């Protein structure tokens, strides 16, 4: 393997806050991280964790208080690095006097494509994000989800090797989210590196080779989604339906919850067969049986709860 796609070393950002800008707030604390070429990498953390700050640092929109980073071996200070990357900001907004087509054409100009190629690219990528019919509409008439799609198109219109997406699924309906997932998988299939932030853990679990979890500006863990949370099964979930007029076996009366016409019960793995036996005896219809594993979400919630309980080390402090 060659150089990693993204190398972040001790990246730290203190924002000056308060009227006199004397106090410092640490938004990112000594982040060190490597992302390999071709990886889909999820950057997770609750609101205010420092995800956007990290991406803005990598884009040189804000400058680090300490630390460095390289993308494909080039320092982030080097403007040539920007030829090889694409970036979707959080809640993107674009020149609303342009049409989607004009906007993509404008951005493509910075890469020096000749006119014919620009046209062809713009059309192709408008189609790619499902905006083929909206290409000639001014962006001021776009909905939030449409803007998000334009944002994704501009991040990939020049075929960058490394793509940074800040909450790519936000503002999209289920169809849109599915489409963005497909785009990310496509990029991955083409060997690109995709680094994206999200709070939607199921997306991260579905797409990412590895994830990093950030909390209060500090890195909490990096690894494959299955590594970060133990994949051990802690129980079984059973859905069943009773025949009209009958009620669930008394042994399950306390633990089963009724959802519409169906019942759901969680049982330890060793008790699965006895429970199924009981259900069979009263002629219940088994709808599904599934193992329960801790999800990234559980891990995440546990982390946040632990962080709330402990006194906060990151947060504010004088320099």
């Amino acid at each position, binding site marked *: 393997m060659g150089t990693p796609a993204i190398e972040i070393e001790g990246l730290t950002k203190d924002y000056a806050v308060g009227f006199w800008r004397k106090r410092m707030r640490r938004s990112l604390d000594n982040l060190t991280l490597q992302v390999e070429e071709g990886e889909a990498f999820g950057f997770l953390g609750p609101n205010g964790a420092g995800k956007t700050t990290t991406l803005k640092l990598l884009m040189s929109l804000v400058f680090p208080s300490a630390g460095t980073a390289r993308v494909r071996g080039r320092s982030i200070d080097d403007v040539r690095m*920007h030829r090889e990357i694409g970036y979707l900001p959080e809640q993107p907004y*674009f*020149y609303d006097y342009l049409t989607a087509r004009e906007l993509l054409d404008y951005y493509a100009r*910075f890469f*020096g494509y000749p006119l014919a190629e620009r046209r062809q690219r713009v059309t192709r990528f408008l189609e790619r994000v499902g905006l083929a019919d909206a290409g000639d509409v001014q962006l001021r008439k776009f909905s939030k989800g449409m803007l998000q799609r334009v944002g994704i198109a501009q991040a990939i219109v020049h075929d960058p090797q490394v793509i*940074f997406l800040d909450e790519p699924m936000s503002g999209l309906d289920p169809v849109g989210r599915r489409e963005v997932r497909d785009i990310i998988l496509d990029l991955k299939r083409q060997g690109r590196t995709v680094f994206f932030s999200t709070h939607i853990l199921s997306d991260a679990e579905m797409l990412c080779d590895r994830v990093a979890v950030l909390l209060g500006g500090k890195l909490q863990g990096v690894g494959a989604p299955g590594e970060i949370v133990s994949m051990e099964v802690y129980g079984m979930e059973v859905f069943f339906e009773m025949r009209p007029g009958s009620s669930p076996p008394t042994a399950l009366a306390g633990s089963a919850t009724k959802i519409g016409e169906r019942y759901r019960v969680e049982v330890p793995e060793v008790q699965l067969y006895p429970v199924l036996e009981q259900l069979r005896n009263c002629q219940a219809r088994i709808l599904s049986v599934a193992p329960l594993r801790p999800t990234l979400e559980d891990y995440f919630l546990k982390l946040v709860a632990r962080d709330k309980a402990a006194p906060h080390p990151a947060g504010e402090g004088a320099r």
Partner: protein
Amino acid sequence: MSVIPAVVAINTFREAVRDRVLYNLIFFALMMIGASILVGEISIGISRLVIINLGLSAISIFGLVMAIFIGVGLVSKEIEKRTLYTLLSKPVRRWEFLVGKFGGLLLTLTVNTILMTLGLAAALYYVSRNFLRADASVLVAVYFILLELALVTALALFFSCFSSPMLSTLFTLGVYVSGIFSKDIRDIGMLTRNPAMQAAAQVLYYVLPNFHNFNTITAAAHGESIPLSLIWQNTAYAALYVMLVLIAASAVFSGRDLK
């Protein structure tokens, strides 16, 4: 030299056009038409003087208002709407963005000024049915107005790199007005016998743009010819001043966190 500033400039021009900035020309046209009809009653010599004076003053004021009010928003608007985030993720350096923004507004102002000058020429022809050789001075006066607008635009852009649009407007207006009187500021400073005051006045004289030499409206109205040396001098002065201001703006803006 990279083409990136040109790409940014063209988009800035397109924005101005789509935001209907050039609609100010309608007011200018109405004003010139009204004036031409009114002065029709007086002698040709006087009506020429009035039309040229009025036309050039309007060209200058319309241009100044545009340069200041659009100039202070060039950068802040892109930061506020976060359009700059995506732009700077492309291979665009911050100074290239600034130079492009400057160029775009200057292009807008130039097109606007040329169209107004055509209107002035039409009015002049309407009242006197001919052009005189001395009317070349009008073109020189227009050129000087453009140089002045370039300077003001650069200043507005510079201030907006570190202060709010509101403050930048005040700063730019302040510098513009003191730039008109910079010679007087020095002269008054010299009159006080205090060496510190004299030095301060001298420094101000050199730091403030000197707009005194750019105003040839009266000379043009009276058909006086403008010396070639002044044209060279003003051109060189404006080019140098604009360059220095843009370099200062880039230095400030390149190190700034975009929030």
